[in-house]
């Protein structure tokens, strides 16, 4: 057993445990916390895959930003302590479907055969990405910035209380 494999197994366990916890915990806050574990595990896997920059972004955005947004979301809305249960039948159908899906995909993964490894990813990873973004992908990059802007404005508009509602709220 190489060290690399050992690292992978640890990261794998962290990731999967996070996911399973998220599915099985009862409190919403705990679920989000469990998810942070998964995100961190995935970031570790990115590093193993010679994607340092992505790993950093992952930690920043997922473990940081998105988790925090979710926490805000949870706090801004009211929650019954326990998550209401979904019907067994539906769960069963979904579960069977997912297991089948998993099996089929697993089979596919096992028979996959691919070309040679890319060797130079880890060398100046961030630089490579930066060059790529500003040469080949400059237009998508700009577009994404627009998307982000739209999302920002949209989120503000949606989340903002209507003025009329506010007035009504004050009067009542």
């Amino acid at each position, binding site marked *: 057993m190489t060290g690399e494999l050992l690292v992978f197994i640890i990261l794998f366990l962290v990731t999967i445990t996070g996911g399973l916890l998220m599915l099985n915990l009862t409190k919403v806050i705990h679920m989000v916390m469990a998810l942070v574990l998964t995100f961190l595990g995935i970031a570790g896997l990115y590093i193993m895959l010679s994607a340092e920059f992505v790993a950093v972004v992952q930690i920043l955005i997922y473990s940081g930003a998105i988790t925090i947004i979710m926490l805000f979301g949870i706090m801004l809305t009211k929650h019954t302590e326990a998550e209401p249960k979904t019907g067994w039948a*539906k769960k069963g*159908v979904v579960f069977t*479907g997912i297991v*089948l*899906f998993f099996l*089929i995909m697993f*089979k*596919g993964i096992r*028979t996959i055969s691919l070309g040679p490894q890319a060797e130079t990813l880890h060398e100046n990873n961030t630089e490579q990405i930066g060059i790529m973004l500003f040469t080949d992908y400059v237009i998508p990059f700009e577009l994404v910035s627009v998307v982000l802007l739209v999302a920002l404005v949209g989120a503000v508009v949606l989340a903002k209380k209507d003025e009329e509602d506010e007035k009504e709220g004050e009067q009542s």
Partner: protein
Amino acid sequence: MDYVFLIPMLPLLSFLIILFTRPIYKKAGIVGTLFTGAAFLCSLIVLFSHFAEGNYIVEANWFSLDTVIITVGLEVNPLNALMLVIVTLVSFLVHIYSMGYMANDERYATFFSYLGLFTFSMTGLVLSPNLLQLYMFWELVGVCSFLLVGFYFYKPEAKAAAKKAFIMTRIGDIGLLVAIFLLFWQTGSFELDVIFEAAQAGDIAPSLITLIAILIFVGAVGKSGQFPLHTWLPDAMEGPTPVSALIHAATMVAAGVYLVAVTYPLFSVSEVAMTTVAVTGGFTAIFAATIALVQTDIKRILAYSTVSQLGYMMLALGAAGYTAGVFHLTTHAFFKALLFLAAGSVIHAVHEQNIFKMGGLSKKLPITATLFLIASLSISGFPLLAGFFSKDEILATTYGDGRYVLFAIGLITAFLTAFYMFRLYFLVFSGNSSTEARESPSVMLIPMMVLGALAIVGGYIQTNWFGTFLGDWLETTPYSITFVHHEAPFWLPILASVLSIGGIALAWMMYVRKTTSIKESNERTGLHELLYRKYYVDELYQVVFVKGSRVIAYFWMYVDRFIIEGGAAVITGAVKRFGQAGVKLQSGQVQTYGTVAFSGLVLVLLLIAVLGGYF
């Protein structure tokens, strides 16, 4: 003879004129009478020219079927010339009579238009040279009978009787229709002469010819009120009395006998068919006579008497007595029409049909009583009157044909006939009367007198003493019929006379001398009840056919309602369920949509994996 076509056309014209011209409403009787009288004159001329010129036939193309041309035409031969005269004469007399009898009816004109239509149909029937045309008119007379029986349409009994008359005769007609179909496919023609030639030449298998003959006879049974299709005829007495005289005594009901006579060459080939005819006729004769013994309604007694006499004619035909059958048909037309008209005259006077509520009318209605007596004597076979000769001819034929059982039945029937006729006569006319009554107007009496004269002398056209004029003449028919003339044994007329007088005497003893109590009592026992209820035939039919068909009908109706409609409902229901299941999926919940979409994806993947051979 080219004006033969006038005979049916004149009554048809009368029908159309009365139907379409309302202004002559009150003159309808005169119009109808004139036209029918003209038709009668034509018939007489045709009869006499037939003596001179012999048979006549004219045909025209009517319809073509492939290569077969179906024709219509007019034929005059001895049999139908005679029938023509009888039909138009009785119709003419009934027209005159009805002008008096129906004078106060609010549908006076309608009545005469129906009479015109009937006379047209009946003469058309008689003149038909082919079976198809005959069948068409055969149905038409049935409809006229239906219309006239139901003339008093507001009476529920009349409605029921009209319906019954139509349906019962229709059952018989279907037999005739099937026979016509079978004959067509055997001979390729509806023409009587072609059919008869084929039959005589043996082109049709003997068993088939028997079947065909019996089917034709079924038609005759329906029309002539023979057992077992007799029940409509007594009920048909719900119609106006002149109609009973015309249709249900003299002409239409005799059409059955006429039909058997017309298709006689077919019957004569098959011994079985002949026996069927004879036995049915004989049985009906005595069967109806026994019922007539105990009935209380004057018209019903006469109706059963008609059934019985028609049975007599059938018996004669079945026993190879072509002449005898036709002879009796002729005389019967006269005296039975007279009986009905006289009965109508009585009913017209006293407005009552139950004979036990009448009595002593001979003093108030002397002419009617006399004419009724003549007719009764004639039908009873009183010596030297018309009925005597024709009845003798039938009995002689039956005896000569070797059908001794039927001969005995004929004798008994003759006795019974005399008895019930005079039971009727004595109850109505003898004794003392308390009811108010006035003799009918002369417009009613004159036709009766004409018929009375014929009922006396009508028999002399065929006697052993003055010559067998009728028989000789009928032999000039264009079709090959074997005429058998049996000389009556010397004792037969005597025996018949004795029986007839014996019957009259018995009636006199019972109802004039009153040796037995004759009060109409409500308590009837045993045989009397059985006879009074007409052997429960009506009740039997009610249960078996009417109820039976209703049961079948309801069965199918429920099949229709529950199985077929239900089946359709199950299918539509299933589709609807399926749709509702789909609606349930469209719950608006994204997760459900997701689940369904995902399940679909998994299924597709599975399919690809399995069918694509990845597993």
